[in-house]
């Protein structure tokens, strides 16, 4: 084991394409910090991202990074985990990638509960295509594709995930780095599918959900008296409340993982010797004789 790594060891040499002030910088630096503090090493981290501004993040985290097609980060990440359970598998994407084009996979990843961490960088807009409404944009949000105001209701991703059987739900704010690092560390350590939705403002296109707006409209559940993240109905209450946006660990349970329910061998599939047990193959033909 090498000496404890620092966040810099998870940096790539690639310059960022994000706009100055983008909330995604906060997410990236918190992730690097969390991985370093957990003693992870880049070779054992698989980082899968989707498409969009948020999807660029995989290029900036020194690891085995996979920048696939739009909306499909979770199937890729699930299979990476099944193929090599020794890896720390993290998927990341935006509200469009995760809650629009990838919404189907989001639900099914929640149901399956693989030991994968999913970071949803929510800026309530489509950034890379220059500011259209997203699944989390407020009704009435005016954009190029919704000049008369967005007619759709915003999606409450965490409430949906809770209903679908989510085993770990948290929400952070990219302007609160310390808190975010803590949330990410606990999420990565959670044995199951852990979702960390991060409020990550778009400074270029979203003039409504700004840093100031989030500071005004959020609160941490652990600062509220008696909040119990093990209480599912309590979690529903705060998630469905139309007041301020709750942050922190909203819900967690110890439901069995996909790997456990599949009886996945301890030894990674990727490490199997493919030339062994040839003799056993012949016996399978007995059924056809």
């Amino acid at each position, binding site marked *: 084991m090498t000496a404890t790594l620092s966040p810099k060891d998870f940096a790539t040499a690639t310059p960022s394409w994000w706009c100055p002030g983008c909330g995604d910088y906060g997410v990236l630096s918190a992730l690097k910090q969390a991985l370093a503090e957990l003693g992870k090493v880049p070779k054992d981290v698989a980082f899968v991202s989707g498409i969009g501004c948020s999807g660029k993040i995989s290029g900036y985290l020194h690891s085995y990074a996979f920048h696939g097609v739009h909306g499909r980060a979770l*199937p890729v990440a699930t299979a990476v985990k099944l193929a090599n359970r020794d890896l720390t598998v993290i998927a990341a994407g935006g509200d469009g990638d995760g809650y629009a084009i990838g919404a189907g*996979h989001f639900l099914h990843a929640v149901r399956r509960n693989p030991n994968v961490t999913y970071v949803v960088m929510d800026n309530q807009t489509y950034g890379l295509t220059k500011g259209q409404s997203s699944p989390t944009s407020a009704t009435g949000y005016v954009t190029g594709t919704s000049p008369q105001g967005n007619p759709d209701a915003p999606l409450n991703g965490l409430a949906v995930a809770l209903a679908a059987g989510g085993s770990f739900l948290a929400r952070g704010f990219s302007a609160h780095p310390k808190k975010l690092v803590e949330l990410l560390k606990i999420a990565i350590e959670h044995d199951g599918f852990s979702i960390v939705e991060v409020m990550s403002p778009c400074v270029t296109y979203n003039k409504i959900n700004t840093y100031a707006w989030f500071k005004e409209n959020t609160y941490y559940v652990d600062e509220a008296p008696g909040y119990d993240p093990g209480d599912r109905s309590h979690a529903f209450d705060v998630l469905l409340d139309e007041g301020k946006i709750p942050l922190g660990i909203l819900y967690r349970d110890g439901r069995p993982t996909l790997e456990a329910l599949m009886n996945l061998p301890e030894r990674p599939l990727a490490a199997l010797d493919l030339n062994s047990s040839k003799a056993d193959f012949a016996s399978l033909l007995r059924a056809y004789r």
Partner: protein
Amino acid sequence: MTFNDIEIMFGGQAGDGSLTTGDLIAGVFKRMGLEVYTYKDFPSRIRGGHTNYVIRASEHRNYGMADFVDGLVAFDLEAVEAHITELRPGGFVVFDSTSETVPGPLRRPDVTWYDVPLAKIAKQDLGLELVRNTISLGVLAKLIGMDPAIVRNDVTGVYQRKGEKVVDLNVRAIEAGEAYVEKHYAEWPSGYGLKAREDGDRLLMMGNDAIAYGALVAGCRFMAGYPITPATDVLEWMAKYLPKFGGVAVQAEDELAAINMVLGAAFTGVRAMTATSGPGQALMTEAIGLAGVLEIPIVIVECARTGPSTGMPTKTEQSNLNHLIFSGHGEIPRVVLAPGTVEDSFYISARAFDIAEKYQCPVFVLTEQALCQSKATLPPLDAASVEIDRGKLVTGPVVFGDYRRFAFTEDGVSPRVIPGVEGGMHLAAGSEHDPEGVITENSLNRARMMEKRLGKLVSMREDLPEARVHGDPDAEIAIFGYGSNRGPIVEALERLERDGVAVRFFEFRTLWPFPEAGVADFVAGAKHVFVVENNYTGQLERLIRYVTGPLDYMHLVNKYDGKPFRPIEIIEAIERHALLRGPGERVAELVPLKAKRL
């Protein structure tokens, strides 16, 4: 009296058990030492709708249906109506006469009719209408001389897991069928008989099972798929056996997830596959492009059915060839392989994984309903002969900074690390990237990357399964075809040869990259070229024309009614164009055979 050469068709309503009985008969034929081919023609529903199951047995391995049906077991009038024209003159019909009668015009005088009140016997004598199938097996066994001991043994084997009572009931049903024939039709022979031969060391296997088995033997340890006819068998087989060999099969939420899971597992270093059919293939297209640009080895089994859209999900067609070769935005290296027999399904499937990993690209195994859901007898599959070559896979540490995942090399293939390897960390991005994996829109890099990736189509040529050339290599009549048509084409070729007509047949096993040199060589000296395929537009014919240029003596022999070819259809096309009429005619559609048969 015809011995050891018979095609039986079971026709009735879906869900009435004729598939189980058909499988039973196929097993009995096999154990009697005969070569068997089966073809399932069933509706896309679980209960009701006309279904039929064809079982062909002969001393010669045919891999396809005969010209005609010899014996039709009809559980209802609809089966007679649908198939009476397919009967060979001199054939026979077993008809369940419990509640229907066959009207005069349908009662062909040139076939023997056995009216048996199957349902009535089942209900009155055995107390369960469901066993009328087994009674019909008893009737058939008696009529054509199936070995009674083997019949009883196989029936016992099939129903054993349902308990002694069920076994006993079915054995009594066999006896009831035999007794009915003895009592009513003892003086009325069917004209068909069987002579048992040595069973020997053979298998009776379905194409999809052979594909799955080939994948397992070749080291595939991850499969993700979404149920779709006629590919589901592959996922079911893998779900049963992969865990026993340390692997995993996942039923995904859709084909988009399935193919992306395959990419994830393959990226992580596990040999991975999916199996689907046209509609699923369409959904997978984007991610297959990603596999091409990320240079990830994956295997996609395409079990083709009729399209477009839902088409006829349980019927056969070869209309997805263009889709596999040309689908997707942008350009990637890809391989399309097509087995022609159940046996070859195993070897081609196993080979696909080596090609995928050696050239780091998607490899398709293309088959269709008439082959992948058909059973055939074959020699034991040789798992020991399958060697695994993982190409430029790197599992030991590399030096970070020196190592380049997408390095330019002579053959276009770069050393491939997998997650967990020290020093190999990189970004695998669907965006254009440089040798290190860093995203770039630099035009020089773009051009070199395209040349590197597409160049693999050239460097892989030597490694691709070669076409098989059948018949007389100097014959003036040349046929092209692939997949399930291999059976009827070879049979047509052999029969024409027996009539003194020389024919050669080019059986494609690699369809992409297109074997241009082989095709050009093969057509040289031919006076008539026939392309046999199951689609409307002549997808294979057009690929061949890219190589040969327009030939006024090229004939498209095509079919798009959901049914596989029978040999006579190919023979007739050849007779019409090469033997009776002069060159220059193009067959748009075959004259319906029904008129001729009646």
